[in-house]
């Protein structure tokens, strides 16, 4: 019977995605947070959070930091070396990014991994998760674009006087790094808690570091009750969404097969409505999507959702896969959990 034949494709489609993703995230976390100790250096244009404040342990640096640094040059210097450096950085970022598209968020990012760990903790303690109402979800979508614009604009305004406005103080020089929770949390995993401080040397430093402390507090509690809380506000996600169209890894939906059962929406950490309700579009990597592929794993229709790498379908939703993953393939009298 062809049904019971073992093929690689069938094995992949039936895999336990949640477990695979859990281990992949751990490996990526170890590489990014501890890779520097073994000499791993992935460069400083990574499309994921890898904190430069981590010191020796870091396996790379995130592009957000590089971007702020690149833009903090006076305009005439920008026309020379600094401009070339900026273009080269941007180009390398795009090349890194196009390999996994938003999958960097769902599979590699250490902040995302931390949030997923907090979610697992909450699930074990049987505390119910929180959800945004649809109206609120629409309202907070624009926050990440605002943060991205500030990230780009503030360093420029430190080195130049824009529209006749006075130059900004140097305390704002890495504005996103000051408020990013990664700066406090990632070095904590190598034993350095020294990023938890409030800087009194000038007013801007005071404001920025206090904001940073508030945000890390919100991050920890928010991620405990809401799945992937920080990802709604992440400017890296906004930056990535701009370049997302030509990327190699895609999430495709065949709307004709969709019954709008909403199982994918239930599984989605980011509560993306379009994955369930949109039956006309083909590419469903929306601005919030982290390409975690939980939706593909939760879809019961054959061939409706698929993860596609450079035209090749690598992970597809199948009936058999769904039944295996929900453990509905056996008739057990008493299921002890």
């Amino acid at each position, binding site marked *: *019977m062809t049904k019971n034949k073992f093929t690689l494709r069938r094995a992949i489609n039936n895999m336990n995605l949640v477990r695979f993703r859990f281990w992949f995230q751990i490996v990526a976390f170890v590489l990014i947070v501890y890779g520097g100790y073994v000499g791993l250096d992935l460069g400083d244009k990574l499309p994921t959070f890898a904190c430069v404040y981590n010191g020796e342990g870091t396996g790379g640096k995130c592009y957000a930091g590089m971007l702020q640094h690149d833009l903090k040059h006076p305009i005439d210097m920008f026309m020379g070396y600094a401009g070339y450096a900026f273009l080269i950085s941007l180009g390398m970022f795009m090349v890194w990014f196009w390999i996994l598209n938003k999958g960097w968020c769902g599979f590699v990012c250490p902040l995302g991994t931390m949030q997923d760990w907090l979610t697992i903790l909450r*699930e074990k303690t*049987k505390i*119910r*998760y929180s959800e945004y*109402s*649809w109206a609120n979800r629409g309202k907070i979508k624009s926050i990440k674009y605002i943060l991205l614009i500030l990230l780009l604009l503030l360093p420029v305004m430190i080195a130049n006087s824009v529209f006749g406005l006075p130059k900004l103080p140097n305390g704002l020089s890495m504005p996103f790094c000051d408020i990013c929770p990664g700066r406090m949390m990632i070095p904590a995993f190598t034993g350095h808690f020294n990023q938890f401080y409030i800087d009194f040397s000038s007013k801007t430093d005071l404001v920025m570091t206090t904001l940073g402390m508030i945000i890390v507090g919100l991050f920890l509690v928010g991620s405990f009750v809401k799945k992937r809380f920080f990802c709604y506000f992440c400017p890296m996600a906004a930056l990535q969404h701009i370049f997302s169209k030509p990327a190699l890894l895609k999430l495709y939906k065949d*709307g*004709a*097969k*969709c*019954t*709008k*059962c*909403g*199982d994918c929406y*239930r*599984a989605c950490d980011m509560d993306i409505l379009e994955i*369930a*309700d949109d*039956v006309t579009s083909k590419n469903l990597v929306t601005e919030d999507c982290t390409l975690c592929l*939980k939706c593909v794993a*939760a879809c*019961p229709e054959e061939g409706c959702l698929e993860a596609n790498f450079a035209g090749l379908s690598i992970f597809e939703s199948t*009936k058999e896969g*769904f*039944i295996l993953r*929900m*453990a*509905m*393939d*056996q*008739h*057990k009298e*008493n*299921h*002890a*959990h």
Partner: protein
Amino acid sequence: MHTEHSIETSAERQNRHKAMEAISVLNALKEDFKSPIHSMGYFYDLFEKVYCRHEPLHEGKAKIGTMCIQIPSEIIYALDAVPIRLCNGFYTDDEIGSDLLPQKSCPLVKATVGWFASDNFSDKPDITFSPTTCDQKTKAGTIIESFGHTVIDVGFPRTKESEESRHYWRESVKSFAVKLSKFQGKKLTRSNLESAIKKVGYAQSLYHKLTEFRKNKAVPILGVDMFLVTNAFFFDKIDAWIGAVEKLVAELEQRVSEGVNVAGKASPRIVYTGSPPIFPNYKIPLIIEQSDAIIVADETCSSNRMFNDMVAVDEWNLYDMIDSVSDKYLKACTCPIFTQNDDRIRRIIQLVRSYSADGVIYQAFAGCQVYEMEQRSVLAAMEREGIPTLYIESDYSPSQHGQLTTRVEAFIESLKNRKRMKR
């Protein structure tokens, strides 16, 4: 000669009439078609037991009557009760109900109300839950209550796209679960709901395996047999049903490998949609299959829709499982009581494509407002896709047989012609 005379009570007469209806359908199923399936014997015996001999099946367990598909059976199983779907297909009960409801009402609702009015159950429900789906079922709730039965209304939304309606249904299901657990005196716990979801999911997966066979060119099982199997799920013990279907799947695998075809080579493949054909109201499916066509798929709430969508849970804790269960019953539902019916149209088109069907037969009960009103948009969509469709109205009375046969046979002839022309 002194013979013992006893005048039949009305209940006994009703039972006799129902048994006659049931047995004639069962005999037709057993005898009128080629290549009978051995495993179907379980189902024929089951229906005979329940509808001809009126034997109770669920002694000692709480029986929860449900008026419509939307009441979550997982929660009922979790609370150690048995869900019994009360949608009725008997003309006998329809006649009783005709006195209690307006003349132009849906025959299914009339039959159900008549059944309650006669209070003649082999497995009488201890409590009935009635979701506010179509108008007639909604109003039938209080009528049934007036006969002395316990009926509890469960609020069901008429739209399913908006956040409020989805939230409303989730709250409805939670309050339903609370009422049922108070009635049972049991708590809904994580482990019993999880095992109920997995058991029902397993039953659904077996149905999926069955329908996969119908995608083949040589279909090993009749459409009416499939209707019988799925109808059995209304009232059968779930473990027994699962066991019987497992045997059926094994036999069908055997038949597929032997290339057994229950239809002819040139039999047109039909997708059946519309008002649910409930045993013994298999008039139209029988006519279709007796006219040398085969029903390969259906979009009805007594058959395919009960099994098609499975519950998907993200976190196996109670807060998520209850919401998953309620979401599945609302969002995937293609019942025509909703305002928009795009999902139903897309579903029918998808069934036609994946089962390589030649035509669609859309049957609506005379008096079923919602199915009759949807006819326009469904037929227009079928025409756009180039799928030949037949629209029939029928009800439970046995007098229409001739007319219906003519129309169905004509349609099937036209489908055969089309196929011949294509070749």
